[in-house]
């Protein structure tokens, strides 16, 4: 490797994930390149520094406190439990509301489609018309059968 490595190789070096061959090649190059040599030295300092940073021990009562919180939640179903219930129910309710709304709006926008009602109305009208015609025929028959009285009888 005569040129400085690509950014990907540098990143993998910095992240410590170069394979053996790549690492050896990069380190060989770094010995001849002051820029990469400086990067190797400063990155080594970062890794050493981070290795020195030891965490503090975890409190002895950590588990006890966690189980106390878990038991407290189990004993008193909180708003979280109710929220969980509504979270599960809400999508179903929303879908149901959408279906009902769609059905109602559809009925309002197409009133002529209500076929059974329309049929019922026309049947009633036909019956009435037929009865009226029968009545008229009956009246006509009665009229022709009765002899006309003289005007004097009426006085």
């Amino acid at each position, binding site marked *: 490797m005569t040129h400085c490595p690509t950014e990907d190789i540098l990143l993998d070096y910095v992240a410590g994930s170069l394979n053996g061959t790549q690492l050896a090649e990069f380190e060989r190059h770094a010995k001849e390149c002051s820029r990469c040599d400086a990067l190797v030295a*400063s990155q080594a300092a970062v890794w050493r520094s981070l290795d020195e940073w030891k965490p503090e021990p975890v409190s002895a009562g950590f588990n006890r406190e966690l189980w106390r*919180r878990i038991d407290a939640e189990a004993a008193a179903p909180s708003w979280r439990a109710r929220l969980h219930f509504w979270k599960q129910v809400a999508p179903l309710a929303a879908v149901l509301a959408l279906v009902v709304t769609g059905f109602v709006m559809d009925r309002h926008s197409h009133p002529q489609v209500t076929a059974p009602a329309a049929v019922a109305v026309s049947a009633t009208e036909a019956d009435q018309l037929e009865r009226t015609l029968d009545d008229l025929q009956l009246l006509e028959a009665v009229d022709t059968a009765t002899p006309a009285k003289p005007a004097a009888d009426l006085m």
Partner: protein
Amino acid sequence: MAEWVQSDMEAVAAPDLDAQLMLRVREGDDESFRVLLEKHRNPLVHFLQRMVQDAGASEELAQEVFLRIYRARGSYEPSAKFTTWMFRIASHLAINWLRDERHERAAERLDAGRTADKGSGDLPVRELKDSRPLVEQDMVHESRMQEIRDSIAALPAKQRAAVLMHKYEEMGYSQIAQALECSESAVKSLLFRAYETLRARLAHLAAGVTP
């Protein structure tokens, strides 16, 4: 995205031991949760200690992580590695905590400024008991540690989380990407920038030079 799907499918095909334990927790086996707690408590608390740099807060956050895992047991599906899921919750909580803490600190600084204006000459003074070399070494060591902590604290929250997961939890790009909910290339970029900043701030420690 395709990488995420692939790794998720691998996780589904061969669920890790933690995922198997979590499936038992789902069935109501609290003993399996105890096993998970014992196994992951220390790495999780230590990650959070380094993230928020506040011992009390880090334990509270770790408890919140385990509590959320326990609460979610009923709907648990092993769609990713258990630790990835755990660190995703932890990073999310820690990043939120840091954001809120930054606001609180800003408010405290304002209050402190007002108090100082009123005049207070009774500030506690830390006294050194003696000046033996051992104490001096301790002070030098503590100063180095403070510098390392400050360097990490100076990183933006996501870069900080990426470095800590990469360095101390030995997580790969893909796992960090899933935990931080971003792409692998974004993780590479976060790590590169973070290590660049750390090199600039910590390089002098290699030669034992004080800045």
